[in-house]
C-alpha cells in the first residue's frame, strides 16, 4: 500500500511545513509507543522479555527525541510562526499503541502486534528515507531508526516463536487481521463522528436560536463580580443538579 501511495508521500515530504508536521507527529507517536512498550516491560512476568521490551522502549523514546529535535530545528530554520501550523494544546502522556491494552495483554499477542507494526513502519520509513535524500540530517535519522527496526522485528519474531512455538505464525496473521479490522473501526468511528457533528451543527442552527436569545438575555442580567451562593447549598445530596 505504501508503495502505491509513494506519490502522496513524495508530495507530503516535498514541503518543509508538511515535513515539520510529519516529524513532530512521529515524535509524539514514537514517544507514546515507547511508553506503551515500557509498560509492557513493567508488567510481563518473563525476565528476558522484560529486558528486550525495555531496550525496545528506550529505542522508541530515543526516536521520539530525534524526530522532535529535527522537527523543531526545521521549524526554526523555516522561521514560521506557530499559529499557521499548530493551534492545539497537546497534552503529554497519551499512548501511541492505542490499539493495544498493555495491561492484561498476553505476551504472544503483544509480540505479534509489535512485529507486524514494526515491519509496516520499517517499510514506510524506507520510503521516507529515500524521499528525504535532499535533507541529510533527516535522512540520517531514518537510517538510524531503520537499523533499530531490524532489532525490533527480529526479537519480536524470535521471542514469539519461543513463547508460542506452535501458534506463532497464526498469531502474526491474527495481528495483521486485527490491524485491518481496527483501521476499519477507526474509519467507521470517524465517519460516525462526522455524521454526528453534521447533525449537531444542523440542530445548532435550526433549534437553538430562540434559546440562544433567551440565554444571552439571562446572561446580560447576571451581575459582574461576586454572586451569592444559595442554590447549591439547597440541592439535595443525591441530586446531580
Amino acid at each position, binding site marked *: 500500500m505504501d508503495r502505491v501511495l509513494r506519490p502522496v508521500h513524495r508530495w507530503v515530504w516535498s514541503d518543509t511545513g508538511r515535513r515539520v508536521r510529519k516529524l513532530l507527529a512521529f515524535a509524539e507517536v514514537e514517544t507514546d509507543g515507547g511508553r506503551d512498550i515500557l509498560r509492557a516491560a513493567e508488567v510481563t512476568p518473563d525476565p528476558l522479555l522484560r529486558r528486550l521490551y525495555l531496550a525496545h522502549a528506550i529505542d522508541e523514546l530515543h526516536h521520539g527525541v530525534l524526530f522532535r529535535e529535527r522537527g523543531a530545528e526545521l521549524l526554526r530554520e523555516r522561521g514560521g510562526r506557530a499559529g499557521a501550523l499548530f493551534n492545539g494544546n497537546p497534552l503529554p502522556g497519551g499512548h501511541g499503541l492505542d490499539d493495544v491494552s498493555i495491561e492484561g495483554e498476553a505476551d504472544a499477542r503483544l509480540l505479534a502486534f509489535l512485529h507486524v507494526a514494526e515491519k509496516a513502519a520499517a517499510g514506510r520509513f524506507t520510503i521516507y528515507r529515500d524521499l528525504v535524500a535532499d535533507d541529510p540530517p533527516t535522512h540520517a535519522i531514518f537510517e538510524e531508526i531503520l537499523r533499530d527496526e531490524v532489532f525490533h522485528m527480529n526479537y519480536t519474531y524470535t521471542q514469539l516463536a519461543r513463547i508460542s512455538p506452535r501458534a506463532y505464525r497464526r498469531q502474526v496473521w491474527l495481528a495483521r487481521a486485527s490491524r485491518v479490522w481496527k483501521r476499519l473501526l477507526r474509519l467507521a468511528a470517524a465517519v460516525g463522528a462526522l455524521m454526528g457533528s453534521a447533525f*449537531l451543527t444542523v440542530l445548532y442552527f435550526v433549534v437553538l436560536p430562540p434559546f440562544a436569545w433567551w440565554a444571552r438575555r439571562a446572561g446580560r442580567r447576571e451581575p459582574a463580580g461576586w454572586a451569592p451562593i444559595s442554590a447549591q447549598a439547597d440541592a439535595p445530596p443525591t441530586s446531580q443538579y
Partner: protein
Amino acid sequence: MKILGISAHYHDSAAALVVDGVPAAAVQQERLSRHKHDAGFPLEAIEWCLDHAGVTTADLDAVVFYERSMLKLERILMCSLRSFPRSWRSFPHAIRNSLGEKVWVRGIIASYLGVPRRKIFFTGHHASHAAAAFFTAPTRRAAILTADGVGEWATLTVGRGERGAGGASSLSLTREIRFPHSLGMLYSTFTAYLGFPVNDGEYKVMGLAAYGRPTLCDAVRRVIRRTADGGFTLVPEYFEYQTSASRSFSPAFVDLFGPPRHPYDPIDLESSDGRRYADCAASVQRVLEDTLLDIARELRRETGLPDLCFGGGVALNGVANARLLAESGFERVFVPPAPGDAGCAVGAALYADRLYFKNADRDVPDHPFMGPGVDADELARVARDDGQRVEALDEPALLDRVADDLAAGRIVGWMDGATEFGPRALGHRSILAAPHSAEMRDRLNRDIKSREEFRPFAPVVPAEDAGRYFELPPGGLRLARFMSGVFPVRSEWRARLAAVTHVDGTARVQALDREMAPRLYALLGAYGRRSGIPVLLNTSFNVAGEPIVNRAIEGYSTYRRCGIDALVAGATLVTKPAVPRARSMKEAYS
C-alpha cells in the same frame, strides 16, 4: 461508616476511601494506569482503595462523586447558547464530549461498582475543594478560599468552616465568581499562549515568571478587570475558551501580547521573544497574586479568623501562596497536598461524612502518604534478573551508603512506603541529589527529567533547620510541609544551594518533620553530617510526560533508562553494573 469519594472525567481522576471519618486510602488513577493526568473513571484506583482497606462494594455506605455533572452540562450548554453563533464549531464537540460518560455518572457508578443508586451522592465541585482543604487541616475554624479553572459554574468561592467542640462540623461557601470569569482560566490561557500544555504546564509559567519583569501588568489588567464589589471579570473579547475547543485566546489577545510561542520553540531568554514570554509570565503571575491577595484580605476582614484553608488548582501556585501568607493578614495558610481535582475525591468523601451524614469530626492524618506501598523484594528480584548490582542493607548501613553516594554527586531514586496523594513527591517517590551546584540542576534537567533549562528543583530540609537556610515567615513551616510555598533562600547559602535556588533567589522548599517521613529525615541527617548542610534536592520520581512512579518495577524501569545512579526501595539498594546489558542484547538480535 465507609464512604468512597470519586473524582473523574476531566483531569486527574482519583478515588479515596474514608472509614469512620478518617481517610484510609487515596490514590490517583494515573499512578495505576500510568497515563499522566488520566481522566477516565478511576476503576483501578477504586479497586485499590477497597482492597487496601479490606472493604467490598457491599460494605460501602455511600459513594460520593465530586461534582454535580448535570449542572456542569447546563453550564456548557448555556455558554454555547450565549456565544451563538460563534460557538458553532465547538458545539458538536462539547455535546459529544459531555453526553458520553460525563453526564451518566450515577448509572456508571452503579453499574461499575454494583452499589444501589440510593447510596450514590454528589457534592459541588468547589464544596469538594473546600472540604479537602478544611477537613484535612489541623485547625478548628478557618476562612476558606477555593480557586480553579471551573467546576460547575463556580471558578472561585469564599466561605468559612468550623469543627465544633461536640464534633459537629459546618462548612459554608457564601459567594462565588462564576464562569467564564476565572483566575484559573486566565492563567491557563497564558499557559497555552506561552506554548505549554494546559492543565499540566501552569507550573512552568510560574517558573518562567522568575526570569521576567512584570512589565505587562497593565496589559493583563485589560483582560481581567476588577469589579466594584472586590471581584473580577475577564473581558470576553480576549478569550475563546467559551467558543473554541482548540484555542483559548483570541486574535485581540495576540494583538495585545504579540505572537504566541510555538510549543516546540525553545525559550531563549537572550532573544526579544524569549524576554517577552518571560515578561508575560511574570505579569500574569503578578496580577494573579494581586487579585488573590485582595480577595484574601477582604475575607480576613470579613471572617476575623487567623487561618485560611486554600484549595483548588490555583493553590498549587506556591509563589502566590507565599504572598497570601505574608501579606493577606492570615497567620496560617493551609494548602492540602492535593489541592487540585484529584484531592476532590478526599474532599467529597469528607464532605459527605461530616455534613450529609453529620458524623462527628475526627482528626485526619497530616501527611499525604495514602497510596500503594513499595515492594522491595520485587525490586531485588527484577534487578537481579537483569544483572544489576543488588544489596540488602540494614537501615543504618543503607542510609550511610546513600548519603555517601549523594555526597559523591550521584543521583538516587528513592522509594519508601506508601505513595503520595497529590502532584508533589514529598519523600516517598523522589529523585534525590546533592543541592549544591548548578551543574547538578543541569544534569537532572538534561539527563533525567528531559525538561526545560529554566525549571527549578525543590529542596527538602528538616523542619527545625529550615529557617537557617530559607527565609520562612511566621506560618511558613506549615506551608512548606507539603511544598506549597516558595520562599527566599538566605543569601549567604545561595551559592552552596545553587541546584535548588531559582534565578530570583527563591526555592519551593519542603520542611520535613521527622514523623512524616522518618527515613528521609534520617537520610537528611546523614547527608548533613557529610556535607555540613542537611538539605537535599528532591524532585518527583518520573520523567517528562509520565506520572510519578508507583510500584518498584516502575521505579526500576525509570532508573534503567535515565541517568539515575542508584535506586532504593525499603532495604534494597540497586546500582548499575559497569557494562550495560541492553546494548549487547540488542546487537545479538540485529
